[in-house]
């Protein structure tokens, strides 16, 4: 960074004969230098975050609409199918094109393409693999006869429609799948068959759990924050400490504590058995109840702390004034106290809700198969199935939901950061 002329030095060089604008110019120059220096300090972090964080996010999200596996592996077939619609006859030139593509596509690209076709039309991977192994690089004189000889499916529309629909470079296939929709043979968007409908239920479950947890956290957090804000200093300190304690403890540690408590051989079951209240250990873990009770425990600080900081600013005189004007306690609470706490409620509720949408570890450790939300499915399609497009489409849905709620939070709280207090 160039050393800028310090304002103090330029000031000394002004002689009596020079007009004021010299001074003005020097000041401007010095300010500009300071400005550049300041921007130079911001730049490293911004560039770092763009490279390490924002570009990768963009790369992931772009996978939800990009569809290059099939055109890369089967360029001739894609070109041959270009003008075709399922209403017309299958064009004869696609048969030699497919034979040519299968002969020349490298194994890995071909495997990617087959996997992509399978996500759109089950059975396509097997068909492609079978066709490839039967052809064995041979170039038969009658491609159509050879292909239909390998599988009569090549005589029907289905396989060609699958290739046509996956011929990229952009697709809505993954986003539609993430909403339990697909394109039928004629390209019309329809719902998938009932037993394949997974994702709308998962989205609904994610929001449902977040809603339950937020509502219960508010129910428990409101009186607790009220108590902390109105008690004596000593009591208030103890209450706040018990809120900060889980806030600082790693989420994983808190989830593990609940699993120690709730296991079949865990502390609660042990106590119940000893007291003779139950004969058999109860199944307390791997269900919605265990998940919610742990999530409330984990996210309660995010509800209590914003509520507390708002309640702390409300002078007790307000309630007294309301009472002296004849308001009954409930009336005073509803008309005087509550309206002033609303921003805190909004901020706390949104913080809890947003975090619940994205939580992964707690459901993985404590929830059952029917308690998993969007984050689980994203991880599942990345780790197990390697269907990046679908993982990306689900990420788009999750990220959009979080972004909208976050914008609401910024609007409501006037803070640009999700910070507490």
């Amino acid at each position, binding site marked *: 960074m160039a050393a800028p002329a*310090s*304002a*103090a030095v330029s000031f000394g060089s002004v002689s009596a004969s020079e007009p004021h604008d010299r001074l003005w110019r020097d000041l401007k120059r010095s300010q500009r230098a*300071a*400005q550049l220096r*300041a*921007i130079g300090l*911001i730049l*490293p*972090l*911004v560039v*770092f*975050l763009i490279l*390490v*964080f*924002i*570009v*990768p*996010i963009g*790369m*992931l999200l772009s996978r939800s609409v990009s569809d290059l596996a099939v055109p890369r592996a089967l360029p001739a077939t894609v070109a041959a199918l270009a003008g075709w619609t399922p209403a017309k006859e299958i064009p004869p030139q696609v048969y030699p094109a497919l034979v040519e593509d299968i002969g020349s596509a490298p194994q890995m690209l071909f495997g990617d393409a087959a996997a992509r076709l399978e996500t759109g039309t089950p059975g396509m991977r097997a068909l492609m693999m079978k066709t490839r192994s039967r052809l064995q690089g041979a170039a038969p004189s009658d491609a159509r006869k050879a292909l239909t000889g390998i599988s009569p499916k090549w005589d029907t529309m289905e396989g060609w429609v699958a290739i046509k629909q996956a011929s990229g470079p952009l697709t809505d296939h993954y986003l539609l799948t993430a909403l339990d929709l697909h394109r039928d043979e004629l390209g019309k968007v329809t719902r998938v068959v009932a037993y394949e409908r997974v994702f709308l239920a998962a989205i609904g479950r994610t929001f449902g759990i977040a809603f339950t947890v937020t509502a219960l956290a508010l129910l*428990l957090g409101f*009186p*607790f924050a009220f*108590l902390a804000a109105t*008690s004596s200093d000593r009591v208030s300190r103890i*209450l706040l400490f*018990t809120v*900060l*304690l*889980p806030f*600082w403890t790693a*989420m*994983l*540690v*808190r989830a*593990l504590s609940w*699993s*120690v408590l709730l*296991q079949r*051989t865990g502390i609660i079951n*042990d106590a119940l058995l000893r007291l003779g209240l139950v004969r058999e250990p109860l199944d307390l873990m791997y269900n919605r109840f265990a998940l919610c009770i742990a999530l409330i425990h984990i996210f*309660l600080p995010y509800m209590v702390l914003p509520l507390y900081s708002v309640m702390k600013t409300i002078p007790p005189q307000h309630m007294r004034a309301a009472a002296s004007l004849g308001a009954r306690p409930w009336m005073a609470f509803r008309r005087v106290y509550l309206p002033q706490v609303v921003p805190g409620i909004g901020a706390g509720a949104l913080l809890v809700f*947003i975090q619940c949408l*994205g939580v*992964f*570890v707690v459901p993985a*450790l404590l929830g059952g198969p029917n308690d998993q939300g969007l*984050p689980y499915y*994203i*991880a599942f399609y*990345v780790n197990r199935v390697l269907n*990046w497009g679908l993982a990306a489409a689900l*990420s788009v849905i999750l*990220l959009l939901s979080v*972004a909208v709620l*976050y914008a609401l939070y910024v609007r409501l709280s006037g803070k*640009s*950061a*999700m910070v507490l207090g």
Partner: protein
Amino acid sequence: MRISPYATLPQKVGVWTIRLFALLMCLYLAGPIVVFIPLSFSDKALFHYPIQSFSLRWYHQLVTSPEWLRAVLNSLAVATSASVLATILGVAAAFGLWRARFRGKEAVMMVIMTPMIVPAVISGVSMYLALAKVGLGNTHLGLILAHTALAAPLVVITVSATLSKFDTTLLRAAANLGANPLTAFRRVCLPVIASGVFTGAIFAFALSFDDVVVALFIAGPAQRTLPVQMYMQANDLVDLTITAAATVMLVLSLALMVGVEFMKKREVATAR
């Protein structure tokens, strides 16, 4: 909440109900966090009370078993490096944001805040994808860079908060006395905002030390951090090393929490 001497019976009942509620809530909040501490000193490999005989075998296991020891060391190394990097980048950016006046500052703030908003699974998956592309998949450096990106916004927030109370004229006075901008920052500004810088560094360290999800995607077996190791062992009912690890993590987070509270006190003291 005090009971006034003139309180009627229903009022007294109300106050006692609230007190009982507060007590139960404290139990609910603090209780589960400490349940595994006694277990970590148990000699038996069972998640059971009462504990028949005490021993330090799980702690011994934690520092001697190659897997656990590597996880502890990985966590310490990654969290320290990420915290230092995030603090350097974050303090510089917070100072620059505080000094600069330009249009689009809101947009810059938004860019800086994104790592805090994006759900961890999405961050983990995308950085896994990108780091693998540039050959940093399954490396310590990759994990450190990822944690730095996640932690830097926290540093910017805490340092910005302290800077907003810092009097600009002090910097002008320093310049007037002949200090160049760097000296002015180092000798005048930094001592005043030190508490914010340390708080930010502690937050950054805690974030990196607590993270499971992002590390789960980015770290290979050789980079496995303590939380990842714990997550992998979570369903092992025989090896209680995990309770020792959890106790260590709990003690560490308590120490960090005390550190941050201390910084807050110091800040209040300097403000007076």
